[in-house]
């Protein structure tokens, strides 16, 4: 309680934010959050910078460094300076030359782009703000940004920067030219046990890496397992990642389940495959691939595929890190069997099957699985409380006999089973680019922010923001810039 004091002008008896207009109140929110974010980011960057400085000084003390000391110091200083310039740079779409669309989802698309300043290629993901807001996807995109920004793992796709304009959010990520596991499955239909073991082991490392950051991915599926230029795995698409922050929570699956069965949500323009009606056998693999391709199209819908999602996410009993291990089990199943365990021709049936997994899960008779493989899958596709990994985390799964002899720590150094054959740094042969609309610039959005040199842009912003504040506010704190060792 603050005493009234005649030496100072009295504070108003009550704060009256309602006395101000909506514009002022919106600006208040922005100001409030940005000030908070400024100090949070500032302190974090200062801390990281100090760590780099200490590290540099330690290295300088090493007598073996000798005459290279000056060079070390110089490189350290220059990389800090490059980072400061990067922070100062106004990020906008026009800084990038679009090359090709390499992915598409309901909320946006991913393009291969070349950055004008450094001439390097990146994957630029664009998300439409209006769609995000109307579908309440803000927690998801925030989750993705947080997960990627905090991660510094070789198992996770690297996020370089995020920026926004009036219509879109952008995530600039490293380009992984090897495509995704989905494309490999389409190409090879099934994997041998050895190959499956390789991808499963790498997926364990990747999932472990994000769990160590405190994130649950919640949407691990073959489309999110990306392949780098060496053929190794990296995890992407953190739209559903659940950090411990409350703002990431979402009950959207539960709502979905409460809806009646859709009359027909088959992807348009595709011959659907009625999996319930046909017996799933090895000889029907061609049809499975047809189904896989149509599932790619499903990624363009707001819902996405539920095939790999654990039942506890739908039923609302609460869930934890082990839901990602269920997804791993489903993917291992698909690699060895040829289709995911609960495949159906519509999402509703898939949900139903997953929730009733005790009755619906089985291995097809005509597919031979080694008992270790079958045991591993059954230990992952099972009740959360008895699931492998639910107590001992990744270590429990690594210790399973299926992985006997795998040296998890040297995985990334061994030769991957499929290495992409790349012709250039813009090679997109591993992506289904032919199925994607290829337009100049980004579709459904401003193709570029042309004609706005920085000066005019800020000056006019000052007078009249063309961005409505409602569109802006939720995206505060979204912007991120990573310190890169490659600044050297």
């Amino acid at each position, binding site marked *: 309680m603050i005493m009234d004091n005649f030496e100072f002008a009295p504070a108003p008896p009550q704060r009256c934010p309602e006395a101000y207009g*909506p*514009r002022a109140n919106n600006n208040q929110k922005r100001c409030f959050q940005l*000030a*908070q974010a400024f100090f949070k980011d500032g302190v974090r960057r200062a801390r990281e*910078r100090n760590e780099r400085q200490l590290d540099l000084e330690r290295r300088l003390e090493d007598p073996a460094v000798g005459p290279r000391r000056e060079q070390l*110091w110089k490189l350290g200083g220059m990389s800090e*300076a490059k980072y400061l*310039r990067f922070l100062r740079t106004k990020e906008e779409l026009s800084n990038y030359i679009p090359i090709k669309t390499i992915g598409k989802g309901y909320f946006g698309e991913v393009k291969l782009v070349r950055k004008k300043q450094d001439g390097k290629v990146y994957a630029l993901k664009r998300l439409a703000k209006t769609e995000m807001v109307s579908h309440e996807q803000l927690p998801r995109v925030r989750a993705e940004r947080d997960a990627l920004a905090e991660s510094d793992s070789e198992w996770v796709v690297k996020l370089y920067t995020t920026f926004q304009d009036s219509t879109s959010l952008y995530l600039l990520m490293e380009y992984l030219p090897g495509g995704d596991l989905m494309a490999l499955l389409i190409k090879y239909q099934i994997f041998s046990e050895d190959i499956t073991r390789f991808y499963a082991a790498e997926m364990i490392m990747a999932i472990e890496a994000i769990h160590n950051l405190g994130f649950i991915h919640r949407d691990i599926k073959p489309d999110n397992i990306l392949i780098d230029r060496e053929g190794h795995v990296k995890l992407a698409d953190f739209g559903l990642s659940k950090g411990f922050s409350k703002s990431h929570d979402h009950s959207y699956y539960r709502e979905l389940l409460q809806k009646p069965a859709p009359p027909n949500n088959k992807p348009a323009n595709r011959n659907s495959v009625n999996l319930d009606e046909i017996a799933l056998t090895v000889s029907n693999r061609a049809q499975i691939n047809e189904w896989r391709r149509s599932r790619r199209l499903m990624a363009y819908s707001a819902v996405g595929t539920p095939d790999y999602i654990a039942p506890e996410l739908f039923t609302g009993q609460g869930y934890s890190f082990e839901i990602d291990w269920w997804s791993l089990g489903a993917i291992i199943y698909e690699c060895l069997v040829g289709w995911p365990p609960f495949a159906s021709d519509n999402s509703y049936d898939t949900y139903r099957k997953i929730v009733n997994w005790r009755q619906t899960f089985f291995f097809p008779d005509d597919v031979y699985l080694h008992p270790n493989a079958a045991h591993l899958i059954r230990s992952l596709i099972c009740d959360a409380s008895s699931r492998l990994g639910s107590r001992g985390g990744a270590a429990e799964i690594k210790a399973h006999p299926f992985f006997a002899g795998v040296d998890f720590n040297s995985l990334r150094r061994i030769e991957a089973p499929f290495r992409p054959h790349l012709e250039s740094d813009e090679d997109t042969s591993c992506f289904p680019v032919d199925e994607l609309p290829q337009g100049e610039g980004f579709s459904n959005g401003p193709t570029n922010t042309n004609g706005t040199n920085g000066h005019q842009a800020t000056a006019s912003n000052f007078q009249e923001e063309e961005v409505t504040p409602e569109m802006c506010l939720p995206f505060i704190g979204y912007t991120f810039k990573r310190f890169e060792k490659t600044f050297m």
Partner: protein
Amino acid sequence: MSNLFSGINARLRGATAKHADKDKDSKPPASPTTKDGFLASPISVKKSKSSSNLVVSTKLPPLPTSPSLSQTISLSATGEEILASYRLPKPYPLWLNANYAKHIVKGNFMTLSARPKVVEQGEWIAHQVVEHWRNLWNFIQVVYAKEQDGKSICNINTCPKMSAGPNHSYTWLNSRYEPIELPAHEYMQLMQRWISGKIDDQKLFPTDPQTVSYAPNPSIANTTLLTGGDEWIGKRSGFPKDFASICQTIFLQMFRVYAHLYWAHFVDPFYHLNLEKQLNSCFCHFILTATTLDMLKPSALEPMQPLIDLWAANGTFPPDSKAYEYANLKAGNRLLQLAGLA
């Protein structure tokens, strides 16, 4: 304002008497720029087209500070007397009440301001200019943005002059280099345009990663960087000769806006909108940075001197900071006492 008081202030902060000037606080600390068509420059340099007689030269001179002098004077004057010399309105503004001078962050603000040893000075100044400008811009937006009815919180009726309390008002130079008085919201608009123009100018604030440099390490023997007489801050990183003086002007302009926000808008709207702690933290960080980097002269701080005194006295400014050095602890302690906190 009488010369007596500004004289005392100047001496307390160790500034030379030259800086104590007449009623209008329109000191010429930096060179004006002339290219803009309309109102040319934010700095009221009377009838002077050159920067020859200005304080700032290309190489930053050490700012006049003399803590020992300040201390001797403090020994003889009481906190009450020093506060009186500031000619503050009575009762004192709410923001000088230590109970309302609080922050959204704890800990040492200097961790954000101190230049990393490997980073070249010009690069660091550029970084700080842009960060502080982004911060301040958000506060300006609150008072500047127009509601549907076309009215803004800071308008010609609330603030017919760009001022910082009863003793300080600021003028802008028109294209004929005549100082003119402007309503605060117009002043802020011109200032915003001017600063954005500078920050967005790639020649002035380059963002090309190819031209970066680093700060020499004196302990590494081979590092020889001095190229001779013609050196300036940021030269090695590709910043132009007038970079430092332009940054000083930007900092001064930002200071003026902060001072106006405190004197005219601390309660209406910032207190009402629950933003006063945010304002305090951003301003505190701003003052520490600007003084540490020699971007603001102590004499320019005058309208906000009592808050600086207060933050030095209550431990917000670390004792080894320039801002602490420029503060008068007795005045600050007296303010704490008056707020019932000492």
